[in-house]
């Protein structure tokens, strides 16, 4: 039997790999918070089948539950049959957006503004102004904005003066001794990461250089398109991918290193459809096998790692972050359910604020229980969401990218500071 509306016969067969055992339920954040079968992976797969077979029937009801999926892919890790949930979800969403319910204007607007360099530059300038003048506190306290936005604003990092890729030379040479020179890698700078979390890119670049890599920052690269795919905007995503493809096609390097989990997951599967271009690797994955000069000193603070879904579930990079953090931390304390989503999930936290916050609340409870000084993650969206959640809950822990933690351990080393002209007390965790 094959599908009717949007699944190909092969995809329909993938759908049939779901044997309805329910072993995925316990890992699904939306099911955990509202207990609805329709908001569980098993339920959603049943609904996809239903929509595929008869998409005229009560589409609103069924698509609502597809909308509420975080796309965290915890179900994919949990499923013993290896059901390729992500592929089926993307197919369903793209059909939904194309044929049934176009994406709402506000989401379209957000996607357009946030992922286009120039416009994002404008937004960034505005946020910077608001932050520097202290207006952001006023805005939050005056309750002018809708609550979800106000909440997110609290999680924003202090926006730097320049986008990372603008502030640096395009080529960053290795600073390791000659006999430890390992070649060259390219760094993916992306959109939001580049403008708001440049410090993460800077740390990544330093660590790569310290370990003997030249770091190329090819110009003209753009947003990876992950958010577009999640929203069902296949065409827009393909457009962005094509631009990136052009940029990276002729880059002479060993790998394209990505330090944002969401971008990594997207580029890994989609940048080279034939699988033959510059290999896409996550920064943890790359360092785990290429680190030749581990930090000489370890951080003493209590540190916990919360795994980004797009690293842990989408890319199955589960052990490497722990291995690297162990090189940098004396007190790495496990966080229960560290592999469960924080509720950020790209635009999800803005569009489905209510359920996103409930998912976050579960996480915050565990953080309160473990009480780390620094909470570590590996994706800008998670960083923002977790920071906002901790602020709201009055928990003092700071939120950092794992690479920043590694960089901080390195900074205890005078040679490292000297090589990169860093002040002694720079980069407090």
């Amino acid at each position, binding site marked *: *039997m094959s599908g009717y509306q949007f699944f190909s016969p092969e995809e329909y067969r993938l759908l*049939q*790999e*779901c*044997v*309805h*055992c*329910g*072993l*995925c*339920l*316990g*890992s699904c954040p939306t*099911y*955990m918070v*509202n*207990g*609805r*079968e*329709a908001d*569980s992976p*098993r*339920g959603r797969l*049943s*609904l996809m089948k*239903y929509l595929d077979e008869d998409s005229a*029937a*009560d589409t609103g*009801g*069924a698509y*609502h*539950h597809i909308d509420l999926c975080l796309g965290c892919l915890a179900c994919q890790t*949990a*499923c*013993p*049959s*290896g*059901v390729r949930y992500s592929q089926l979800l993307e197919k369903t969403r793209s059909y939904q957006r194309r044929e049934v319910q176009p994406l709402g204007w506000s989401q379209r607007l957000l996607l357009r503004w946030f992922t286009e360099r120039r416009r994002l530059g404008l937004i960034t300038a505005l946020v910077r102004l608001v932050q520097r003048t202290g207006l952001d506190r006023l805005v939050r306290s005056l309750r002018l904005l809708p609550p979800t936005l106000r909440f997110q604003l609290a999680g924003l990092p202090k926006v730097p003066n320049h986008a990372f890729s603008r502030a640096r030379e395009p080529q960053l040479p290795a600073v390791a001794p000659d006999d430890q020179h390992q070649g060259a890698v390219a760094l993916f700078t992306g959109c939001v990461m580049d403008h708001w979390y440049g410090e993460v890119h800077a740390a990544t670049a330093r660590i790569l250089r310290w370990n003997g890599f030249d770091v190329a920052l090819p110009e003209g690269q753009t947003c990876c398109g992950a958010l577009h795919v999640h929203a069902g905007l296949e065409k827009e995503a393909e457009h962005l991918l094509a631009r990136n493809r052009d940029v990276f096609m002729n880059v002479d390097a060993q790998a394209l290193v990505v330090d944002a989990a969401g971008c990594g997951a997207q580029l890994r599967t989609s940048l080279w459809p034939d699988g033959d271009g510059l290999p896409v690797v996550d920064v943890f994955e790359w360092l785990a096998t290429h680190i030749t000069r581990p930090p000489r000193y370890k951080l003493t603070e209590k540190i916990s790692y919360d795994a980004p879904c797009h690293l842990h579930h989408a890319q199955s990079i589960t052990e490497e972050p722990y291995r690297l953090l162990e090189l940098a931390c004396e007190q790495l304390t496990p966080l*229960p*359910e560290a592999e469960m989503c924080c509720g950020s999930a790209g635009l999800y936290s803005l569009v489905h604020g209510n359920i996103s916050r409930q998912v976050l609340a579960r996480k915050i409870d565990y953080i309160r229980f473990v009480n780390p000084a620094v909470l570590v993650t590996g994706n800008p969206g998670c960083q923002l969401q977790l920071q906002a959640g901790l602020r709201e809950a009055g928990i003092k822990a700071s939120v950092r990218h794992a690479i920043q933690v590694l960089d901080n351990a390195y900074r205890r080393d005078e040679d490292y500071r000297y090589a990169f002209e860093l002040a002694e007390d720079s980069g407090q965790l």
Partner: protein
Amino acid sequence: MPIPPSLIKKLRRIVGRKQVETGPAELLVYESDGLRLHTARPGCVVYPASTDEVSQLVKVCCQAGVPFVARGAGTGLSGGAICDGGVIIQLSRMNRVLAVHPDDRYAVVQPGVTNEYLNLQTRGHGLEFAPDPSSGVSCTIGGNVAEDAGGPHTLKYGVTHNHVLGQTVVFPDGETATLGGPFPVSTGPSFSTFLIGTEGTIAITTEIIVRLVPVAPAVVTMLAIYSKVADATDAVSGILTAGVLPAALEMIDHLCIQAVEAHLKAGFPTDAAAVLIIELDGEETLMKREAEIVARVCRGQGTAAFYTAETDEERLRLWQGRKHAAGALGKITQAFYTNDGVVPRSRLTDIFQAIYRIGDKYGLRIGNMCHAGDGVIHPQILFDSDDPQGPGRAMDCSRDILLACLEMGGSITGEHGVGVEKRGYIDQMYSAVDLAHMIRLRDGFNPGGCLNPGKIFPNNAKDGETGSAASIPPGAGE
């Protein structure tokens, strides 16, 4: 028969508007539990948050004469948590661990708590809830209680009823009772224990006091690999008669190994006819001696290879392979059907011969995993769901296997319960008089028959229309 709008209104008043679902998409997903061969669409689903809400809900359902059923995670495999046209009382929102008392070794939980979550909350105290159904990542303690669930470690630690100290229940008329308690009270038979395993046909459990046991100080997990199934099953008897009581003693045969290794990759050799997973736990020196005995028995029984998991990771991988073997079948088949027959341990070799013979007779592939130490089998009958005859043939095949179990002195269900699935066979196990007594007992508490109708018993007079959609398997009970 649609649910009267007046009832829906009442339900909404009790739990709040948003906690009642009536839309087609929302109801569709409640058509079956883990067993897809029996489907029945409910009329609505409600999500109570407290014992009190459950009590009010059942009261109004009873008054309206509308059937209702409690549901945990819907991982059941006997069609227990379905309710044709009625009200599903979904307990997943009642998912809190209310208290953990490490000193007195018990915990109080709501019924929607999963085994995994409960253990996450208690392991910090070095304690755990011992029943470990393979579905423990998702299934609920309420479901465990209703099915008297067991698991691989049942062999040494017993099933759910050995680990429940008390419960709060709501009877179909809305009355609430607290039965048993954390400490032993010697006043006749335990009413709480009587309710365990009644598959939600007498009362709805809304709070459970569970016993906690210390996490074993040390564990050894071994894998014995066989090129003949009979050698593996003989080794099982050999181990147990040598005086060792493993924490778990499980078997997986060739076909299920193929499924596991297709995606999960537990490290089972794909050319083996069967493997045994043997786990010992307890005090180190004693365990060492036992491990030697196990190794000796397994080797004497023609094992092709035998090894001990060196790291925790390896150990967990073996267990994941075993526990998720059923879920992994999607990689090798479109559909499968399984049962949970039981045979005396001494007949394990015979039942496997019978299973393969029956499979050949129907021209169906059957893979096996089983709680070998307990004699609980899980033959996984693979069939083609596109073939209209497929499901029927699989069910007939399963029936033959269950009848073979009965012939060998076993039973038709070791842990999944009877549900709608096996109600056609129960009269093969019990006499008409036995059944009449059981039904009388149930009807004493569930006089209107509104709570979970159509389950466990065949030709139920109280069944009415509500049980008919979930029809008795073809050829059953002849």
